[in-house]
């Protein structure tokens, strides 16, 4: 029985191994070149070499033994053992081989490729699970019912599909890691069966060491057992402790090894109890701030401090914080970083998105703007004499103004003929070149052209590789070149997949799932590592971020084809994080100081629920059992509760400005209404003059504008004339006006087809119904005269401001002014509202009149009095608008009402055509005729008192008050600056 040499992690695994190794070998003896050392990963190889060189310091020169990572070793054997080895390909090649295999057996329809593409990844995982167990996949006679039909069909005949897949791989000459391992094992098996002499490559291996392997899959066990038999000097070194972890015991059993702990003469150090500190934090920034505090002096050696980053998104904030500490730090980063975090990748994804959204020759405006406003596009100034940000801004504003849902590139080029040079290149490179692609090769050329176009942006920075951004970008470009373009430049799958959508889907898949492999080298300073990179390494101080459930151990990606039930059926082993527990425990045991940080978020609207990892719970439990004190620090933000301010202070300068405004400008209802709604909104709009950001696409107010214009067009010839709707109403003509105007508003370009269809139908139906209503009431109406259409009214009134009399001009624009003769003559001020919810509140209106008549409005310019007044004006201030218009008309009434008229009614109301039951709603509905006198008296004498009070409030209150109606804030364009003003400033 061979021996398994066990080195405890607290001895410093790699250094102790070095001591042991150097006791057996001299680095100056060339025989060492026939000694092979195999480690699980590249990082442990690098560290081992570092320690060898350090320990061999007394030699001025020497040879290293042959040091391989497991993957490198398998590649080495495969390449050297086989006469005609296949190159190793990435995942995507395998998928296409799978698709080709399925197509040969089942002929996939063009439209089905996409779903086979997605399921292909899952089937390949099943195939490789079998390969790792050294078996050929077997059929699953009763696949789970919930699987799609085609997936069940493949499952039922899995062996046949697998063999075909292997055949296709061989035809194309592709290999992959598990394939190579499988082939090597098969080769060695045959070699042994046939008792053939060893190939040269194996003869060269005089001694081999397998270091730090645990939880081996069946095929790996087979390989190690073969090598053990073939190479007389085979060492198995493990990292372990008493009692031996289960994963090690299983490995010893599989390899038929007898464990022996290394003698203490080789040990480098002996850490009795690592100092463990726990940190419970509320958010990642607190975690990172604490980590930075743990770096107290420059880190010289690579095994001094290691920060384990489980979430790659923490790297950027971590580096940012490290940059700000008062130390010069050298850093190595080794982890996988998702490429979808990169700005350049977002540009590529936006380009694909634009193609996916394209219909005929039209692009979605939102997609177009996303590409146009990408920071890289704005920077390609070196190509043109134009100022590109200016063009981008102009084109963006044009598109926002137009509100189209979709637009053609030609239309934009026509609109901006003077920017043709830029737009042509921009459109060709980012859009047109992808429009008619049918092959992967064509896509590769488009990507290449884009990179060439953008290359000058990076050239200088990338050569130095100083900043994180440049390092990541360089690695991104390398990934793009080696993994993406390499595949796309292969033309072999061209004939099978000539579909643009599928080709773009494949590209999108790459750009969303691929990861950059960052490798810190040369070995120096602080180590920032992914968790698996720490295998076999020992550090004086280890800092592990985000030791949370769902992060460590990492969640397994769910494959519906590899549920536990299916694995059990297939005889595929089920692992439950045993290996992760082992790695975590060895990491803690190997360090002098372990700082473990985790997040706890119990209930939050903005963050997801977080709880400590099971590793933390186990560790705490173990410490408690040992009666060791648990060092835990709770990281809390210094909470400052910002008191909510009542309003934005109003200084003398603002008051003077307002006074000047009131004297020189006319005051609209919007001006007053804005103040009534929210003082802060008034401040942003009328004092700071902040404009609302233009919005893309269709704007809801356009329907209102359309209705306004429609009725204006319908009525324009009737101005000043007597008419009856029943006489003039012609459905055909109405439809004609409607159609022409609808076309003018270009709604078909601004809405999706379904919304467009419904909106048009609803608008037309509302108009027709409104006219039917008008025809209905004409049984009571003797006469209609349109006396005003979109008419502006002004009135100059005396207002006392600060004990001084001023004349202020008020203005308003009425949609319709109709003289309608029923029982009495009525003068109706009507305003169109597309939203049927707008309604006047008659009872409140009369109460308001009573209130103003019977109260002196005192000089109380508080928020409370303002709110009380707003409440009296009805929901959405509907009554204010109508009263204000009423007031303007009343003060101008002699222009419209004959002086000798005994009795008449003036009323103001809303036309809401979409309210089919009651399209006209009026402010006043008094039951007694004498109430009209009270109303007229109010507008003659009292309404101005209210306006005076309101203007005084605007001028002399201490603050621009924040509204207490938070519903208003939800859709307010000043929400963000207002929030800051309210709580911080």
């Amino acid at each position: 029985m061979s021996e398994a040499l066990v080195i405890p992690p607290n001895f410093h695994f790699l250094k102790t191994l070095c001591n042991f190794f150097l006791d057996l070998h001299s680095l100056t003896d060339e025989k060492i070149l026939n000694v092979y050392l195999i480690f699980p990963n590249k990082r442990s190889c690098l560290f081992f070499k570092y320690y060898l060189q350090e320990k061999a310091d007394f030699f001025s020169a020497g040879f290293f033994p042959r040091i391989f990572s497991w993957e490198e070793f398998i590649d080495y054997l495969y390449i050297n053992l086989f006469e005609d080895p296949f190159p190793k390909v990435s995942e995507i090649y395998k998928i296409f081989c799978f698709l080709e295999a399925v197509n040969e057996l089942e002929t996939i329809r063009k439209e089905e490729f996409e779903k086979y593409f997605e399921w292909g990844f899952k089937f390949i995982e099943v195939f490789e699970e079998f390969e790792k167990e050294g078996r050929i996949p077997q059929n699953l006679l009763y696949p789970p019912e919930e699987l799609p039909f085609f997936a069940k069909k493949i499952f039922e005949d899995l062996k046949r599909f697998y063999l075909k897949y292997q055949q296709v791989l061989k035809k194309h000459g592709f290999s992959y890691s598990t394939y190579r391992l499988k082939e090597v094992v098969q080769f060695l098996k045959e070699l042994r069966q046939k008792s053939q002499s060893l190939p040269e490559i194996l003869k060269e291996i005089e001694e081999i060491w397998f270091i730090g392997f645990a939880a081996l899959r069946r095929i790996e066990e087979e390989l190690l057992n073969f090598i053990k038999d073939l190479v007389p000097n085979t060492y198995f070194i493990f990292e372990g402790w008493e009692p031996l972890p289960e994963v090690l015991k299983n490995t010893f059993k599989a390899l038929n090894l007898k464990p022996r702990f290394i003698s203490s003469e080789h040990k480098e150090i002996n850490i009795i109890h690592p100092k463990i500190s726990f940190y419970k934090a509320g958010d990642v920034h607190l975690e990172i701030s604490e980590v930075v505090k743990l770096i107290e002096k420059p880190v010289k050696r690579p095994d001094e401090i290691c920060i384990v980053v489980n979430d790659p998104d923490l790297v950027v904030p971590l580096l940012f914080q490290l940059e700000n500490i008062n130390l010069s730090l050298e850093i190595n980063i080794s982890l996988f970083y998702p490429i979808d975090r990169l700005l350049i990748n977002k540009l590529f994804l936006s380009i694909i998105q634009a193609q996916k959204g394209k219909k005929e020759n039209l692009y979605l405006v939102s997609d177009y703007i996303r590409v146009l406003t990408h920071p890289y596009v704005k920077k390609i100034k070196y190509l043109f004499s134009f100022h590109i940000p200016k063009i981008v801004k102009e084109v963006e504003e044009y598109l926002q103004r137009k509100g189209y849902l979709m637009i053609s590139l030609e239309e934009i080029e026509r609109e901006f003929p003077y920017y043709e040079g830029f737009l042509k290149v921009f459109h060709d490179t980012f859009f047109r070149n992808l429009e008619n692609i049918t092959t992967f090769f064509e896509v590769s050329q488009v990507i290449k052209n884009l990179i060439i176009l953008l290359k000058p942006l990076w050239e200088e920075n990338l050569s130095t590789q100083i900043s994180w951004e440049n390092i990541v970008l360089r690695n991104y470009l390398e990934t793009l070149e080696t993994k993406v373009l390499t595949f796309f430049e292969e033309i072999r799958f061209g004939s099978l997949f000539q579909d643009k959508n599928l080709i773009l889907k494949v590209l999108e898949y790459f750009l969303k799932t691929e990861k950059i492999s960052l490798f810190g080298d040369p070995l120096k300073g602080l180590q920032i590592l992914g968790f698996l990179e720490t295998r076999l390494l020992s550090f004086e101080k280890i800092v592990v971020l985000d030791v949370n459930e769902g992060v460590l151990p990492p969640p397994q990606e769910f494959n519906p084809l590899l549920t536990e039930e299916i694995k059990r059926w297939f005889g595929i082993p089920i692992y439950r994080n045993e290996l992760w527990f082992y790695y975590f425990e060895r990491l803690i045991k190997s360090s002098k100081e372990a700082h473990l940080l985790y997040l706890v978020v119990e209930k939050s609207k903005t963050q997801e629920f977080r709880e400590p990892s099971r590793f933390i719970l186990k560790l705490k439990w173990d410490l408690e059992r040992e009666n060791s004190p648990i060092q835990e620090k709770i990281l809390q933000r210094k909470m400052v509760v910002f008191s909510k301010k009542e309003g934005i202070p109003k200084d003398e300068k603002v008051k003077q400005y307002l006074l000047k405004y009131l004297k020189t400008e006319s005051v609209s209802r919007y001006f007053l209404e804005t103040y009534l709604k929210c003082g802060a909104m008034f401040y942003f709009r009328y004092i700071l003059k902040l404009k609302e950001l233009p919005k893309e696409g269709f704007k809801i107010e356009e329907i209102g504008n359309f209705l306004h214009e429609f009725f204006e067009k319908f009525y324009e010839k009737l101005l000043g004339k007597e008419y009856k709707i029943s006489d003039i109403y012609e459905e055909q003509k109405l439809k004609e006006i409607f159609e022409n105007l609808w076309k003018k508003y270009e709604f078909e370009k601004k809405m999706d087809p379904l919304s467009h269809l419904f909106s048009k139908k609803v608008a037309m139906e509302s108009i027709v119904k409104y006219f039917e209503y008008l025809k209905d009431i004409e049984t009571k109406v003797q006469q209609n005269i349109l006396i005003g259409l979109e008419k502006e009214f002004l009135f100059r009134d005396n207002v006392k401001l600060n004990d001084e009399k001023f004349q202020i001009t008020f203005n308003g624009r009425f949609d319709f002014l109709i003289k309608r003769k029923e029982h009495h003559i009525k003068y109706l001020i009507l305003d169109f509202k597309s939203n049927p919810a707008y309604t006047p509140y008659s009872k409140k209106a009369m109460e308001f009149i009573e209130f103003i008549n019977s109260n002196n409005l005192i000089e109380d310019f508080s928020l409370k009095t303002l709110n009380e007044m707003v409440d009296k004006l009805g929901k959405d201030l509907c009554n204010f608008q109508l009263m204000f218009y009423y007031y303007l008309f009343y003060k101008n009434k002699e222009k419209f009402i004959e002086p000798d008229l005994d009795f008449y009614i003036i009323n103001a109301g809303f036309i809401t055509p979409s309210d089919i039951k009651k399209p006209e709603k009026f402010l006043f509905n008094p039951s007694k005729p004498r109430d009209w006198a009270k109303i007229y008296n109010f507008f003659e004498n009292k309404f101005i008192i209210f306006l005076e009070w309101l203007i005084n409030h605007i001028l002399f209150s201490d603050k621009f008050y924040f509204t207490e109606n938070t519903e208003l804030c939800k859709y307010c364009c000043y929400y963000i600056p207002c929030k800051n003003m309210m709580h911080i400033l």
Partner: protein
Amino acid sequence: MGIILNQAKTPLTIFNEKTEHVFLGEILHFVLENLLISGKNNLRIFDSEEKFLSEALKFLKKALACRAEPLSLKDKIKEKALDILKNLYKNQSFVNFARDLLKDAEVIYKEVESFLKEKDDFNFLRPDLIVKTKNAFVLVEFKLHQPGLQEKETIDQQIKQYLKLLQQIKKDANIKAVLVCLEPFFLEEKEYNVRSAGHPTQLSLFENLM
């Protein structure tokens, strides 16, 4: 104070850091190293162009299987590599060199990872081949193209370090280094032996090689 990130710099095609020449050079290194190792046990591979190319092709396939480049590029590189290897075989001085080198070779080590400490600098070295004969160690270094002046200086420095490495390890051995340039073909030899007091000297080709 700031941070310095030490990261492996990945070469990029768009910046001409990874050219077809580099690719071709790496492929030919692999082929020639393996070809000479193979020739140690079977000198007959140098008997005819056919035998030489057939053996070279075997390693060429393996070299290409180590790479992820697209098939079209590999085909192109394979063709170029074969052309260079054909020309190389046509050059009698290469065949003579190989035969002379291999006939006395006991062991050949390729891509030998090693270290050399000079003052406080620790240099990691990786000579292409170290051939151990009965009386000497011969370092073989391949270059695809004739180096320019600046590059030549770097190569000289590199070879000097290789010689020093072996001299430090094998203090009593005769150590020689041969630079094999493929396009245009030439051989350049440097010697570092116990008699020459620590300074490499350039020799004419094959003089006292073994």
